[in-house]
């Protein structure tokens, strides 16, 4: 399948470089399980858009550490094309796209694949409930998210899995929700609340620190068999980790991503992976993991609040300078 609208590589096909030995060594976990990573969030970096935001997670320490970088831009509310049927609510669409150079291993294609379509659909569901769509009839609100760089763990073939459940896609989705929500707020679209995304995972911990060779060993025993995993669960201690990163090197038994509106105390999205027990005993894992994800998203929410506030203060300052004109053309002033 060649894409005739783009320049393609050699017909013979190319392969990503194969290394002599795998050089990827797992980073040592320095964070405590309840500490969230530092987030850099800035709005208004795509001036042609109505609203935009850039999110980076975590702030990188060195050049080579993989980080998650997303940009999000929002257009709207703008009129729906005349060919579409009448809609009394605004139509919110979300598009998430990985850049070709964003993922480890194989280069990503330009045409949207199933994973991207799935994430786009989840993103639009998570955001849809927060926007006051009833205020904007016959209009469209388009949200675009481009992933520039990510940490891996996307569950691709050939992507070395950290063991257990991959949380890469979940953290991409959760940060995309946070970033897009900040962009919607930046666009000045009326919202009920801001949505923040959070991820939490149940992690098998052995003796406090996850040691690499032990991880390997236990993986060999129980890679696929669920029974063996349950056995592992009995041997090790299961702890809840907020905001687990694919490069932390945890063995994640189960993970959950949520979209959470803190002011209304409502969940817009819940997505869990992996097996969790809910046998009604003291350790109800489903509740524990979702609660963990909510706690993580509450932390993220503080960052979104700050970013939106910063932008708002800047806007108010500008309005203060041009107050005489701004009062007369209320709608236009915001546009220009």
């Amino acid at each position: 399948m060649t894409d005739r609208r783009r320049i393609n590589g050699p017909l013979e096909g190319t392969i990503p470089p194969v290394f002599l030995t795998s050089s990827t060594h797992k980073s040592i976990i320095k964070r405590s399980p309840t500490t969230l990573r530092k987030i850099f969030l800035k709005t208004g970096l795509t001036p042609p858009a109505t609203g935009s935001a850039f999110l980076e997670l975590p702030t990188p320490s060195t050049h080579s550490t993989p980080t998650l970088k997303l940009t999000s831009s929002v257009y709207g509310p703008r009129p729906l094309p005349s060919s579409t049927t009448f809609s009394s609510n605004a139509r919110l669409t979300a598009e998430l796209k990985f850049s070709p150079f964003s993922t480890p291993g194989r280069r990503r294609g330009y045409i949207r694949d199933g994973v991207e379509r799935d994430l786009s659909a989840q993103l639009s569901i998570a955001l849809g409930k927060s926007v006051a769509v009833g205020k904007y009839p016959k209009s469209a609100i388009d949200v675009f998210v481009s992933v520039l760089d990510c940490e891996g763990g996307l569950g691709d073939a050939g992507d070395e899995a950290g063991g257990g459940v991959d949380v890469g896609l979940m953290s991409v989705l959760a940060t995309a929700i946070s970033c897009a929500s900040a962009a919607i707020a930046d666009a000045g679209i009326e919202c009920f609340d801001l949505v923040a995304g959070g991820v939490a995972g149940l992690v098998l911990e052995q003796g406090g620190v996850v040691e690499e060779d032990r991880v390997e060993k236990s993986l060999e025993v129980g890679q696929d068999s669920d029974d063996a995993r349950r056995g592992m669960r009995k041997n090790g201690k299961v702890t809840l980790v907020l905001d687990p990163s694919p490069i932390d090197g945890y063995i994640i038994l189960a993970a959950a991503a949520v979209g959470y509106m803190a002011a209304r105390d409502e969940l817009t999205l819940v997505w869990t992976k992996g097996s969790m027990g809910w046998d009604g005993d003291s350790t109800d894992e489903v509740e524990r993991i979702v609660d963990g994800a909510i706690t993580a998203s509450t932390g993220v929410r503080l960052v979104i609040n700050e970013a939106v506030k910063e932008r708002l203060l800047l806007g108010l300052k500008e309005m203060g300078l041009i107050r005489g004109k701004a009062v007369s053309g209320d709608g236009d002033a915001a546009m220009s």
Partner: protein
Amino acid sequence: MTTAPPPSPPPPNPLSFPPATFQKLAPKIFLERHLQSTPATRPSGRNPDTFRTPSLHTNSLSHAHGSAVVRTGDTAVVCGVRGEVLSLAAGTGGRIVVLRTGEDGRGKNGEGEGDEVRERGLVVTNLEMGTGCSRDYHPGPPTDFAQAVTARLHRLLLSNKLISSQSLRILDPNTEEVKAYWVLYIDAVVISLDGNVLDAAWASILAALRSTRLPQAYWDQDTEVVVCYPEVSRYKSLDVKGLAFTASFAVIDLGAGKGGKVILSDPDEFEEGVCGERVMVCALEGEKVGWIEKGGGVGQVAEVVECVHRATERFKIWEQLFAEVLGSSG
């Protein structure tokens, strides 16, 4: 009636709009009025010959072999370069590969720079604009404009011969025979678009190529595959020869007696929409010119000379920025 009714106060000026509305209603007149004022000023506040100040960051992406972010005003482009291996042994089992020119430059090393980059398509340039960078671009297949810009970037890259085939060859360590090639996938993603995407995209591609470090690879005879050394210290930077920078201009004709033709350097989205005439000059090192494109409008040589002059000035600014950011390695 002898007494006139009390005159109602006339509306101050019924046809006056705020500037933003005027700009939307009559874009051409809006721009012309700006340029006719003394001194001629563009709506953005720049002089006609002022370019936007560029900024550059390199190597901020972790999964690309080289990357750069270029921002000029409100136009921002991220470019990532990724190397993949084209194995000659695996792909050509029994098949005959017809090179685009008859000459086979593989045997010669050193001076005999057979144009393998062009023949085998070792450089793959693409520009992605469907990222919500501007109001008019939607995800999906690239628009005609995006395809045209991509083709120009690709042509510029090949015609300036910036990448030597030698640095892309992967050799058999014993026989010094070329067994495979690196293929460079150059992907420029436009994050924000406010006109003149070509200059920003080109600068980001050049900066990304200059910051690219490929793993050291060799042909393993036993397994018949290309293997790379994982050590970062053995990564080699690409041999990028020389510098070349593009400068784009938009030309507007104000009419005889009203100022004549005005050349606008580094036009933004609004100016690009209004002006029909475009000039693009690619300046090379040593005050040379590598490429001139001009279209739309009746031209005079003086105009092109002026553009070339401005492009060489612009070249110096880019050169300085590259030297600052990329250091001596550039």
